[in-house]
């Protein structure tokens, strides 16, 4: 990709695009980043790993000028970042895509790309050239960007791509991506890394936060591990050496004293859905369901005690499926029978949480009726007991008075999942349940989904991560163009599932429709 010239070697001769020296960042009592020094260089894909709440996002936000450090300094482009603002960081070529997006929903994709970018012609934004440039970036990324679509109409994967395009649009030399692959399918992620590789070869620097060690194994040049706010290490991956051993070392560095094996073992256990074989009743029946243009003719049966995985490329009806099961919309045609439902929605920040409310309010969100007395007052003791029990099960920080906003992304996710699973629903629908959650916590959430099934709930898991589906589900259904086009056993390969997702095998289903 040829946007912007490759940077010539900086003044100091080093290729560091951004440097943190002994950076310290506190939020009240919490020391989110503790004296971390790190160099981010051009020509490298730099992976940053660590548990939820380790301080990854905070450190990178400091580097991108979004948070002012309490101590230490940040050097960008050879000089101290001063003033310490995102605008100045962008001016010097550092652009960060946040874990939770910063796009403006009511603007179109193109408008979002142009937002805050430099004027191009006599002080006015030149839309035609912006469009051409956006197109060029999209082509380079190997993706389609619906430039005239409003962002609010896009799914989360598309928004992710728009965010990256936006950073490139601003001529980023150092591109910082906070968990960009959390909601991408493996092939989408591979494609993203290919793009990043091209950027890196053109002389840019790329930083990627990820919880997925196989991505580190396959794509990273340098790996930084953080733990509880501290830097554990930051070093290149030696591709000539034993990569597997290095990845294991990274795994144990992330978790602290060697508990990797434990987490892996915990998560490897399959075998949920066996209950289905023993013939549970129907927990959910959908017949010929149509919702807008998203779901065309969807039929699906979910039995009690069974976990069914839903695979598919985003935008093929997932949003509508969740919406119809969550009761946001009524189906235009067809039958939905079953419930009560507990839903984990994919966008935790807009749909799952009230960010400016306490964790107490958030873990029992929407259930105040249960705690209300006849006079409308709340039984605060009962609420407190329930909230405390849930927060302790969730694995997130347990201070109930904290605002949800102050939790790290993964910890926010734990709250949303725990809330849904704490309700004794007969149908659990989980969209991207482990999005942004670290390895240990993922295993934990998987165990909880299995428990729910074991207790007799029907569980529907919608995920971009096929490994996750294979691990959990007793069967995988493929959603394409608004209907279920295939049902496969969990042993199906990526290629097999992928073919159905792309509709390559779907012709016979389509035969009758116009």
């Amino acid at each position, binding site marked *: 990709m040829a946007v912007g010239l490759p940077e010539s070697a900086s003044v100091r001769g080093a290729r560091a695009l951004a440097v943190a020296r002994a950076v310290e960042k506190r939020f009240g009592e919490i020391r989110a980043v503790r004296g971390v020094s790190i160099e981010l260089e051009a020509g490298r894909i730099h992976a940053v790993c660590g548990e939820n709440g380790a301080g990854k996002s905070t450190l990178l936000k400091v580097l991108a000028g979004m948070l002012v450090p309490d101590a230490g300094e940040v050097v960008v482009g050879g000089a101290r970042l001063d003033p310490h603002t995102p605008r100045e960081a962008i001016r010097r070529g550092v652009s960060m895509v946040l874990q939770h997006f*910063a796009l403006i929903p009511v603007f179109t994709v193109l408008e979002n790309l142009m937002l805050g970018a430099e004027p191009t012609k006599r002080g006015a934004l030149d839309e035609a050239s912006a469009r051409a440039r956006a197109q060029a970036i999209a082509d380079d990324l190997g993706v389609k960007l619906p430039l005239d679509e409003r962002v609010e109409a896009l799914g989360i994967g598309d928004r992710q791509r728009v965010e990256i395009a936006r950073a490139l649009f601003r001529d980023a030399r150092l591109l910082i991506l906070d968990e960009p692959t959390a909601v991408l399918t493996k092939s989408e992620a591979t494609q993203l890394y290919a793009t990043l590789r091209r950027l890196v070869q053109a002389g840019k620097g790329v930083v990627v936060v990820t919880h997925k060690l196989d991505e580190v194994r396959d794509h990273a040049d340098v790996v930084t591990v953080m733990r509880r706010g501290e830097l554990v290490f930051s070093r290149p991956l030696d591709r000539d050496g034993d990569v597997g051993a290095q990845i294991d070392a990274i795994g144990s560095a992330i978790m602290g004293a060697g508990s990797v094996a434990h987490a892996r073992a915990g998560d490897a256990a399959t075998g949920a859905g066996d209950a289905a074989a023993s013939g549970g009743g129907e927990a959910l029946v959908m017949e010929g369901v149509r919702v807008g243009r998203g779901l065309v003719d969807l039929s699906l049966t979910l039995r009690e005690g069974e976990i069914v995985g839903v695979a598919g490329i985003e935008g093929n009806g997932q949003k509508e499926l969740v919406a119809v099961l969550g009761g946001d919309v009524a189906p235009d045609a067809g039958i939905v029978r079953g419930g009560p439902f507990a839903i984990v929605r994919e966008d935790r920040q807009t749909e799952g949480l009230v960010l400016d*409310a306490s964790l107490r309010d958030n873990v029992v*969100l929407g*259930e105040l009726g249960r705690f209300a007395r006849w006079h*409308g007052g709340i039984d605060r003791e009962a609420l407190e007991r329930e909230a405390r029990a849930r927060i302790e099960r969730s694995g997130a920080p347990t201070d109930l008075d904290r605002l949800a906003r102050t939790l790290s992304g993964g910890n926010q996710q734990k709250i949303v999942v725990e809330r849904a699973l704490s309700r004794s629903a007969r149908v659990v629908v989980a969209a991207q349940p482990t999005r942004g959650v670290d390895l240990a916590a993922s295993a934990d959430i998987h165990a909880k989904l299995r428990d729910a099934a074991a207790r007799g709930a029907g569980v529907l898991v919608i995920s971009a991560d096929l490994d996750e589906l294979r691990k959990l589900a007793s069967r995988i259904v493929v959603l394409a163009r608004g209907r279920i086009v295939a049902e496969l056993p969990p042993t199906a390969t990526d290629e097999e599932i992928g073919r159905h997702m792309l509709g390559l095998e779907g012709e016979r289903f389509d035969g009758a429709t116009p």
Partner: protein
Amino acid sequence: MKDVASRAIGDLFRTPAVAGLAAGWLAFCLLVWLYGASPREMAGLLFEGTWGTSYGAGQVLFKATPLLFTGLAVDLALRAGLFNIGAEGQLAVASLAAGVVGSRLPHGTPAIVALPVTLAAAMGAGAAWAAVPALMKARFGAHEVISTIVMNRIADGLVGLLLASGLALAGSVRTADVVPGARVPRLEVALSAFRGSAVSFAIVAAVVATVAVMVAHERTRFGREIGLIGKNARAMEAEHVPVRRRLAQALVASGAVAGAASLGTVLGYKGYFEEGLGAGAGFGGIAVALLGRGSAAGLVLAALLFGTLQQGGLALNAHVPKELMDVLQGVVIVAVALTDVRLRRAVSAAPVASTKGAG
């Protein structure tokens, strides 16, 4: 570090209370100076005329009474993310209802019956007036800012019309006197220091109501739910909380509280309703709510501030026109409004996603 300090000061002036007070003070100095008077002298006079004597203090409390009720009303709606500009109209119809019902009770009705009945009529009328925009919001999603403004205009006309068509005493624009039992006694009855001042026990009721409503926000299902809706309606909807119904209920409750302001005007002061009584308190309540920022103490202090300005205008009238105080109030309101996040959120039809999550 200079960076940090200047940023901190910048932030301070972006807090509504500080911005409002600073802007108010600057405007005061400027206006007074333009009139050729000395700001310091005028400030001194202003203080003497208000808090300098117990009579002055009583008058401030008197002016603050309806403001506290309407401020509480606007604040209640604002918690749910609604901007109730209609307190003015809600109070007008409520005051008429108080005057009419209070005067038609049998003369000897004891206070324990007369006062609650009259108050209920007033609050009911305020609630009913707010119910129209509330229903429009729940049914059609009509923006409450527009509909409550319209309802203010209608209230204006309707109150005059009803008075003229038989509810007023012949040849006047006022109702008959409310029965003695429906009147709220003056504070001077209990505290002789307030002798001559118009302040009544309604100020006590206003403070108690403010505290009670704040507690209810914390401790009742309704209060908590509207607070959460105000912070993220979509998430509440996703959890099947009846968001539209709650919003409508919040607006109706807000109207009822605004109607209670007639305790300080009709029942605590005049003893009857006449056209224009209590006018301006509804809009003043918006300023109080914005400045008071959702805490009981904040609302009380804000109501006292605006009460002080109103009373102070009278004290300065010999030197500078008392309308100067209206300008001053306007300046404070604008400064507060410009810096208030809640307000921006409530008014903007298309909320911009904020992205400040930790993660």
